[in-house]
């Protein structure tokens, strides 16, 4: 569903991402983890077509992102950690706006379903200024889900959500994956990653430190067998002493 080959991103001399290659198939949820500055956001924004890679190839549902960006972007949704909304469009108008952009055929039928799923039914006529941080995040997620993307890119999706919202969001991600979407999720919340991700990609200094299922990663490092995900993560990024503390 999404294939990444040799992705490099340089900012001047600084390599933000170096030689990243992986694939995420339908139904898979890939967890992108790593310390601050590891290159997670750069990776996810490159996959969304927002920033242009220095080299490498990204294919979304068979479409090359560089050669056919419109077709590739039509198949994916990017939900950033900070919801970017238009100040003067109401909740419902945001969804209608996205529906037109992505050519969603039955937008009027999908809107009530999504508003119900995101618990935003009572806010359909509200402007972003009238929404709480969590509600804005839910609206951004609803916008991302409206066109039923084949690839879902989520950057810290639980930021600002209350416990009910977090539970709903986890259920939403799992449901989309079960429906055949490929999901890439960047998060510092290791328990979230452990709970819903089928595979992990651990980044540090823009390089892949580990890639695979949790079992595969632990199998490649027998010393980590009995340790928690947090300890495994710290060991992978070379912070064992922090794990000990």
């Amino acid at each position: 569903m999404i294939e990444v080959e040799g992705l490099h991103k340089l900012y001047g001399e600084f390599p933000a991402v170096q030689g990243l290659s992986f694939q995420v198939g339908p139904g898979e949820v890939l967890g992108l983890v790593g310390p601050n500055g590891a290159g997670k956001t750069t990776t996810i924004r490159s996959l969304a077509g927002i920033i242009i890679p220095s080299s490498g190839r990204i294919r979304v549902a068979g479409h090359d992102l560089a050669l056919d960006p419109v077709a590739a972007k039509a198949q994916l949704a990017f939900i950033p950690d900070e919801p970017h909304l238009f100040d003067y469009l109401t909740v419902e108008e945001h969804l209608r706006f996205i529906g037109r952009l992505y050519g969603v055929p039955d937008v009027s039928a999908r809107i009530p379903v999504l508003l119900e799923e995101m618990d935003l039914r009572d806010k359909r006529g509200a402007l972003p200024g009238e929404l709480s941080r969590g509600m804005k995040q839910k609206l951004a997620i609803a916008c991302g889900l409206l066109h039923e993307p084949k690839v879902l890119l989520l950057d810290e999706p639980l930021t600002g959500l209350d416990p009910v919202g977090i539970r709903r969001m986890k259920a939403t991600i799992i449901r989309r994956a079960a429906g055949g979407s490929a999901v890439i999720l960047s998060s510092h919340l290791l328990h979230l990653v452990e709970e819903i991700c089928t595979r992990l990609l651990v980044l540090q200094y823009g390089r892949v430190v580990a890639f695979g299922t949790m079992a595969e990663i632990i199998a490649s490092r027998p010393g980590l067998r009995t340790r928690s995900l947090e300890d495994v993560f710290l060991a992978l990024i070379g912070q064992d002493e922090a794990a000990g503390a």
Partner: protein
Amino acid sequence: MIRVFGYLAWRSAHNRIARQLRHLRSPRYVAALVFGLAYLWFTFVAQRSGTSQHEVADGRWVELVGSIALLGTVAWSWIFGVERRVLKFTPAEVTFLFAAPVSRRGLIQFKLLHSQLFILFNALLWTLILSRERFGLSPWLRVVSIWVLLTTLSFHRLGASFVRTSLADHGRLGVRHRVVSLIVLGAVLIAWTWSIAEALPQLAESSGDSPFAFLPALGEAAARPLPTALTYPFRLMVRPLIASDVTDWLRALGPALVLMLVHYVWVVRSDTAFEETAAAVSLQRAQARSEGRGQAKDARSTGRITPPLLRLAPKGWPAGAIFWKNLVAVARTRQLRKVALTLLLGGALMAALSFQLEGGSLASIAGWLAISWAAATTLIGPQWVRNDLRGDLLKLDLLRSYPLRGWSVVSAEVAASTLVLTIIQFSLLLLGYLAFLGDQLMEPDLRQRTLLLLAAVIFLPAVNLLGMLIQNGTALLYPAWVRLGSGGPGGVEALGQNVLMMVVYVALLSVLLLLPLAIGGGAFLLLRGAIHEWAAVPATVLILGTMAFEAALLVDWLGRIFERTDPATVGIG
């Protein structure tokens, strides 16, 4: 504490400038800088020797026009202003300063100090802009004069906004707190109304022939005792600018400085309770802004969300959604319906008055004003109407994630602001046309005026489109150097920057209009002998066709730049 504030203001300005200069690593920015410096040198330095032959501008006229312009600006800030720009705190300032052991008065002083950097920069720009005009003294003395003027004006606007907000927030209590300010304001308003009523017949009589006959009449009207008293503080502000020697300048500067200090005391020693409110409002706004919701405040404050004028069809050109979104934003911020209703009623009234003998003069003043504004918006409009890429570039991440080609995004964005500007101009022109509808003696006659209106209707959209492409192109090419966001082009303090930008804009627009006018004009001259005035038709088609071709090339080029723009590299998104 003032040293801490000074440190913060100085270091922030230093680092900001250093960050802007770092963009000079990009050849594109270097090219712009070289072009800008060459342009400034050519305009203001290389031609200086020629300007010495210019006659010294008549100080009396500068004083008159300047003081009336300042009076108008101040009146605007009292009637329409909700300006609290100087008191807007950034999220970081709210976090660190509001929680620190600093009095609210100290915070206000900090913001006034901070605004000084901006005012000083614009004073320098104004000095550069006015350097070819030979009134006044050396540039250094002029910088001081302009700085005093802009600072006084800035303080006045802030004081006015305090009074306005106090009344709005506290009602009767606010009236009690602001009794002195309100008495002064009331007296000024009465004097103003009286002066206008007294001068109106004379002004109206003089405006019938041409707008130029209006100026001497204005001078005579302003020389009467009441208008002289009314404009006296503004004359004090202008006088240092037109002083002929150092002694004269020092004599003029004293009263101007006193006026500035009086304003400073007025603002800083305002009622503490109100300052608390103002600071609290700033805090809320800064917090709202940090959560990205600040701009929706206008729409919210109306209590009711304006339904969109047009419903977005679910199918069609995908980028049409962006065009629709930008029009919705204008309708919800500019209170479009009220403006449209006012223009409609104004137009009907002007048309009715134009047939009356007594009302005709009044209609002609309004008519000339409307036409002048329409002409002015051709130059300042593209800076002022910003519901396009300039408003949306801060959300570049989002725009780049949409399944749209760059040219598609650019054309939708630019089309929205072009449409809004064109509607404003058409409304003003129509108002002007209606104001002279009953005037049988006017030259040009009604047929010629109708043809002129038709020509404006045909050409203005194309000119506006090219103008908006220049403005959006500048934002796209130099996002780090251009102010992004949908807000207006800044207050009076920012006028220097805006004038400079407008001069560059006019130069670029002239270059773009050169080819269409040459082709259209050539065709007209060639065909006139054969088909007489009908030659205007193919000439018009050729002009519009060439402009459309230029616009298409620009859209395509800017679209490719949009697709190549990396939000992280340019420092946005």
